[in-house]
């Protein structure tokens, strides 16, 4: 069967993605354009009409206003369209035009027609055009454009069949040029044309601009900006005459949108509503996600128990249960948070409100080298950095995006909470300041504030240090408010979860297994000996009573001490002693690299008391713990605060690292983040400990 590459192009907010979803459904998958951090959405669907069938390879190109690219996204789209050797180069293009914004949509349409690529104009949002009383004579439009025009509504799913039937037919090149580019840089263009006879007149011009942008010497006299301006004016001239021919009356912004904006971008009301929204997003991810997360953890614990009771004990079973299964659990447990965050992001994006967020927050964010769109990822970082980092995709400026990604982990995420809770209960007295404010609660809040201050401080410093050649301009359309399309929301969530599982999941499981090896294995006879004792006890007492359980716990603590992790803890003790820590804390620091909350579980193991759920016993033992040589308590106020500061700053989350790697396509940025935050944590904890003791 014939296969055909079909690309969807169009302005942002033209409903292109809704159309793509309607045409492809669950066949879609997300990949990457080679070498750049731009998402590539593709889908393979078979199409047929009465005459025959074809395999359609759809690709959803990034939204763009013009082939003269002004951002990375637009560059990717242009390259796909003008380079036949590009593996995504289409056989036919669906130009998605917004029927309520026809004038502007026809600009890009004209450029694509002039490229000579076979095209079909999908006149989208016909339902809204009808609602606004806009009538477009598509027959006349079709004859003026020289390409088929299909009125569709991706939302209402009308016109899709007609579109798909057209796609089965052999694509035909556009019959008319949109404008004549004969007088634009004619000398230089003719030169390129002579070298590439198959190219259309306009394609030569676009290629010319690209060469000039790259700094080509042979076209140094070409003034790109002036040329593009001239071309744009020519195009709008043609557009005006076309709109005249179809007798399109001037569009106006719908009253409903203007009214909503009066409220949502109000001087005071706008901010209040925005912060309430942020609060809502945060609360939902923080609290609502707990339920499915606990259910997932319980399910994995159940699976683990099943495996342990049904499989013979030994290395392989342990690898399966404590290595692989534990690692998997650590990956799957993120799904609720990712799903919830992207539910919100997709809703806000689809409704049109997201653009208003940028509009409201831009001035403040710019001061810190961030973008208006950085706000939601930053605040979500207070629940969990993983989905937050994934959510920075929408920031098109590379420098602003990378700064946002780098500072999100400073925001106090929910994994730090168990650590803070344990340590505060341990070293902060439960008293009231000024008779009203609980000291422990104040310390907790200060830690959160500290994270926030570190985040924007780091952003500020990074923005001063990083050089960027990419122009940063704001120029942004504030689209008409629409009711979010649920299928779009669903596909966004489906896509992000899938990408996380396949991409970050691999890294997380790999590192979990390494840490499992470090904590579960050790050199020397004594290690083996203790392990054998534990196995013996567990085999003899499948349902241990309290005293046997305690015996097992003591040996497990010993085993951890003798493991590789324990040895590493002892080795790094000199480095962490100035921070007020001993080697037992050292082990926990190591195991927390997997995830911060592992700190509590490791403490429970080391001190042979309690577990993640039941922390009172751990706390009691920790309070009694004394340094062997000095006899002084280990967990003093200074040590406690120092440890809290360490956890507030250090990047102890392989999942974050895995996601940053995915979003930046390299190990460089996550490495910088890990090492940088680690050093910073060391220095701050050192300063705090020395000051307080």
């Amino acid at each position, binding site marked *: 069967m014939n296969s055909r590459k079909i690309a969807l192009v169009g302005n942002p907010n033209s409903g292109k993605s809704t159309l793509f979803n309607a045409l492809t459904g669950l066949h879609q998958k997300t990949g990457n354009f080679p070498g750049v951090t731009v998402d590539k959405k593709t889908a393979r669907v078979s199409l047929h009409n009465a005459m025959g069938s074809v395999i359609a390879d759809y690709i959803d190109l990034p939204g763009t206003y013009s082939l003269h690219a002004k951002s990375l996204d637009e560059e990717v789209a242009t390259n796909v369209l003008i380079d036949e050797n590009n593996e995504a180069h289409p056989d036919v293009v669906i130009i998605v035009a917004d029927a309520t914004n026809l004038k502007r949509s026809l600009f890009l349409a004209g450029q694509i027609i002039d490229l000579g690529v076979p095209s079909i104009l999908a006149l989208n949002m016909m339902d809204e055009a009808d609602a606004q009383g806009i009538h477009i004579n598509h027959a006349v439009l079709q004859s003026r454009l020289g390409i088929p025009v299909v009125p569709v509504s991706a939302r209402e799913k009308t016109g899709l069949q007609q579109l798909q039937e057209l796609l089965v037919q052999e694509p035909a090149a556009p019959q008319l040029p949109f404008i004549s580019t004969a007088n634009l840089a004619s000398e230089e263009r003719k030169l390129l044309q002579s070298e590439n006879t198959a190219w259309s007149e306009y394609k030569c011009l676009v290629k010319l601009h690209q060469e000039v942008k790259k700094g080509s010497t042979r076209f140094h006299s070409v003034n790109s900006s002036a040329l593009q301006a001239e071309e744009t004016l020519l195009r709008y001239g043609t557009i005006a005459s076309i709109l005249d021919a179809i007798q399109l009356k001037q569009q106006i912004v719908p009253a409903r949108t203007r009214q909503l904006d009066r409220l949502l971008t109000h001087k005071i009301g706008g901010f209040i509503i925005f912060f309430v929204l942020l609060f809502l997003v945060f609360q939902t991810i923080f609290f609502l996600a707990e339920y499915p997360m606990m259910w997932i953890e319980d399910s994995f614990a159940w699976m683990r128990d099943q495996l342990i009771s049904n499989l013979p004990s030994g290395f392989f079973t342990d690898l399966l249960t404590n290595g692989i299964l534990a690692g998997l659990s650590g990956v799957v447990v993120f799904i609720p948070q990712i799903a919830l965050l992207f539910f919100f992001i997709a809703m806000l994006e689809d409704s049109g409100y997201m653009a208003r967020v940028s509009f409201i927050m*831009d001035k403040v964010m710019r001061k810190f080298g961030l973008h208006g769109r950085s706000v939601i990822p930053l605040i979500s970082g207070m629940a969990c950095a993983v989905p937050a980092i994934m959510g920075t995709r929408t920031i098109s400026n590379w420098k602003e995006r990378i700064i946002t990604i780098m500072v999100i982990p400073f925001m106090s995420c929910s994994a730090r909470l168990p650590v803070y809770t344990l340590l505060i209960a341990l070293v902060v007295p439960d008293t009231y300041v000024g008779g009203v404010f609980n000291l422990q609660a104040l310390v907790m809040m200060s830690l959160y504030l500290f994270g926030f201050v570190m985040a924007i401080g780091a952003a500020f410093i990074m923005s001063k240090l990083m050089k960027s050649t990419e122009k940063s*301009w704001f120029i942004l359309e504030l689209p008409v408010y629409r009711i979010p399309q649920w299928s779009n929301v669903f596909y966004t969530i489906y896509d992000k979860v899938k990408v996380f599982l396949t991409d970050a999941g691999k890294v997380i499981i790999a590192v979990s297994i390494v840490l499992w090896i470090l904590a579960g294995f050790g050199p020397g006879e004594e290690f083996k000996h203790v392990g054998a004792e534990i196995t013996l006890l567990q085999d003899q007492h499948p349902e241990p009573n309290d005293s046997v359980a305690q015996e097992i716990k003591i040996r497990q603590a010993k085993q951890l001490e003798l493991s590789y992790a324990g040895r590493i803890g002892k080795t790094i003790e000199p480095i962490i002693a100035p921070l007020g820590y001993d080697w037992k804390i050292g082990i926990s620091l190591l195991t927390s690299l997997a995830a911060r909350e592992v700190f509590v579980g490791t403490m429970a193991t080391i001190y042979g008391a309690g577990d993640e759920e039941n922390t009172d016993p751990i706390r009691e033992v920790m309070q009694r713990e004394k340094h062997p040589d000095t006899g002084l308590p280990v967990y003093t106020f200074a040590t406690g605060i120092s440890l809290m500061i360490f956890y507030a700053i250090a990047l102890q989350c392989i999942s974050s690292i895995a996601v940053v790697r995915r979003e930046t396509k390299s190990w460089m940025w996550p490495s910088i983040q890990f090492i940088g935050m680690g050093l910073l944590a060391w220095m701050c904890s050192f300063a705090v400990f020395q000051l307080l003791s």
Partner: protein
Amino acid sequence: MGEMKRHLNELRVGESAVIDSFTDPELQVKLLEMGCTPGETIQVEKFSPLGDPVAYNISGYILSMRLAEAATVTIRSQR
């Protein structure tokens, strides 16, 4: 003769004008492509709560830009 050129950033909420020309070549292309062509009427819809950026009503849709960007657009009054 010799009247001072006014710029887009000088307009207040509700005021409108006609686009005349541009002072920054790169921004010019971007704005033109978005439909801000000479002869088009542009009206100030509102300012952001913090005063910057500004939302303009043009060609039947709303376009926002920073005051610094608007300053590169020269305008004339509607006849």
